[in-house]
């Protein structure tokens, strides 16, 4: 069964262990710049937004790549970069609506989330339930359940009124 990383921004508290863990497994050092994911504090909304490659079904990065360097790993569902084919034109970075592909100036290469071969490090280090790695059909159920909760609360207010 295909797995996905389900995000729940409401549970994200900004600890950034997802980014630190990503940076550590991929680069052997701790940082945010080279992490394949990111957490941004949006103070106007008082919320931390965890962001990463959504492994889109119809990915603009794959469409735009002139070298066909981006392909989908059928096993994990991740869109991965073939560094031998990549010419570093950065067009994928331009078209990604989530800023999920970035240019690493040190290694002179594009970097992005590859789902850690189906065992994502970020999820393992999220202690708050903001990230979950689960079968796609289960994820649908989880979202529906959460949606039902919101609706139930609204309905109970209507009843009280």
């Amino acid at each position, binding site marked *: 069964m295909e797995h996905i990383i389900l995000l729940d921004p409401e549970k994200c508290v900004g600890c950034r262990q997802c980014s630190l863990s990503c940076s550590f497994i991929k680069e052997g*050092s701790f940082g945010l710049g080279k992490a394949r994911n990111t957490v941004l504090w949006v103070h106007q909304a008082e919320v931390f937004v965890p962001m990463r490659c959504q492994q889109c079904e119809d990915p603009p990065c794959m469409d735009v790549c002139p070298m066909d360097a981006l392909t989908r790993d059928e096993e994990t569902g991740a869109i991965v970069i073939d560094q031998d084919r990549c010419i570093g034109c950065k067009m994928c970075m331009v078209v990604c609506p989530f800023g999920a592909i970035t240019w690493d100036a040190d290694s002179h290469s594009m970097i992005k989330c590859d789902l850690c071969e189906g065992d994502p490090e970020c999820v393992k280090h999220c202690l708050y339930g903001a990230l979950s790695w689960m079968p796609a059909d289960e994820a649908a159920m989880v979202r529906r359940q959460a949606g039902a909760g919101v609706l139930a609360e609204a309905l109970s207010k209507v009843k009280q009124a």
Partner: protein
Amino acid sequence: MEYYGYAGKELYIDLTTGEIEEKPLDLDIAVKFLGGMGVQQRILFDLLRPGIDPFAPEAPLIFGSGPLTGTGAPGTPRVMATLKYPETGATGSAGGAMRFGFMLKLAGYDQVVIKGKASKPVYLKIVDSNVELCDAKNLWGKDLVQTTEALWDTYGDCGVIAIGPAGEHLGKMAQAACDLGSSIGRGGLGGVMGSKNLKALVASGSGSIKIADPERFNKVRESLFERAKRYPLHDRILRYGIMDNWPNYSIQFGYKNNRTYIPNLEEVNKAVGFEAYKKLGKTAFGCPSCFIVDKEIVEATSGRFKGEKWYTPSYINAAMLAIKFEMKEAGEAVKIGDMTDRYGIDNLGSSDLIDFLYTLHEEGTLTEADVGGLSLNRGDIDGSLTLLEKMAYREGFGNEMADGWEGMKRVFGDEFVTKKTSLIKGRMGVWEPRISGLGTNEFAQLIYPRGPNAECGGSGLYTLNQPLETVKNHAGRMGMSKEALERALDSPLKINIGRFVTSSEHWLALFNSLGICNRHVNNRFYSISIVSELYSAATGIEHSPEDLMVYAERVWNTFKMLNIREGFLRKDDEPPNNWFEPMIDYKGEEHYIMDYYKTKRLSREDVDQWITDYYLERGWDPETGIPTKEKLAELGLEDLAPRSRKKK
């Protein structure tokens, strides 16, 4: 040169000339003093001219963090600021958290050393190696929340340390805040920044922290994660933060006017305590790397201040002042908490000071006319807000309040203020031994060189009545040697606090130097062997647990020597007279200072003896409190010893 654990660079900023100099981290100093507090203490020793006015342009101000900050070790966001404080004239390292120290490391810097005074308001921008003093014309006059939000708007996801109007007006109780979630620098850090025309610091970094032995580091880090996942109180702490400890806190902090003890009364609990807190709106947020975030934006959900919000490290601070001010609902506490933070005033210090004024008014020794017609009615929330405003802007009587207890002594006389308060080194304590007993926190307020503060006692006996076995376990965790523990337990009162507290102080010095959060839950996840493994693996510099304790002792002795040089001696460590007067509760019962286990009422002689024991345990002269030459030599600190004057 490659640096591991450390970022590897230091910034030296001269605000007078605008000069910005980048230097490689002095590894000799870093190895000897660990980082954070330790390194800052050593730098301050060289740069601080003894006896200098803390508001003088040359007075240095150092920000930075430790070698574990920026790594993924859980709970390592600590940022430290080291300076001479205007409230007390003492020096010390203030701790904060949130993103600033973390971002500073990722930008490539371990420390930022600031001196001088800018000719007009500026803020310091550090975006990777792009370091600049920027015009703060549009920020000056803004409150702390507005300032921080404006800088977030400009720089996105960055770390900000900022001051409010109280700092701009050189308040001696003005502090700063890190990313609105963590206050830093009680005792006047805000005022010192204001005196330098420095409105804020911003840091943002895209770099990374290298680890000398990733595999070894990872092993320890993963074991901490495994423990965190199994931690049974995780959910409760996320929900309630340190308010979870309300049954203890409401006893420890439930007093007013230095004499009246208000225990955990049901109505207090319902109006402004835990029950009221549970009904507030809450948005959790926290520091980078934390596994048990407990900061939150609280929102009043009912009453006059419905909809008011407050970014807070913990609602407990508001609850403490709500008890003192006799507030009627949590919304009032949220409002006052938010306003003290917006002004950038230390809310514990200012609430003690306002409590003092209310008390004088209740006793009939101070009229509202005496303070320019301001309301002095306890419980009048608008009156309290006006007092804070006047204090922040130094208007009318607020000008005296802005100078803290020194201002009060100017108005009421030294003797009178001393009689009415429990000042230690010119400031009020946080921990009240007539209620809690003289545990590590209460006792350490006397001998803490910086003056009494919340972190006093490091992590000894935070909560009431811990069984001796728990205390012994914690001693082991802190790296206390068997012999030291035996000496500390050699007491008819089960524990000799004077001797025990030396280890608590070393544990605190270690956290403050390496960049680990000192909150009690985080604190208790660490042990000296874990700290030693993480430090050695991260930096490649091998320090055994035993070594680390010596390093921590070195840091503490440097801290002490700085304050000896400022003229602080044993006389400044003496307990206040009021500790030996009773607190009286609502039933009229008297409460006296007792030992931690509440088996004996303590006399001044008892406390004095513990101070002597503390000095002896430390190898300091019991008459003066000065570290002996032998002790300094043992720690490799010969260069800090006072030099005898050479004859021509």
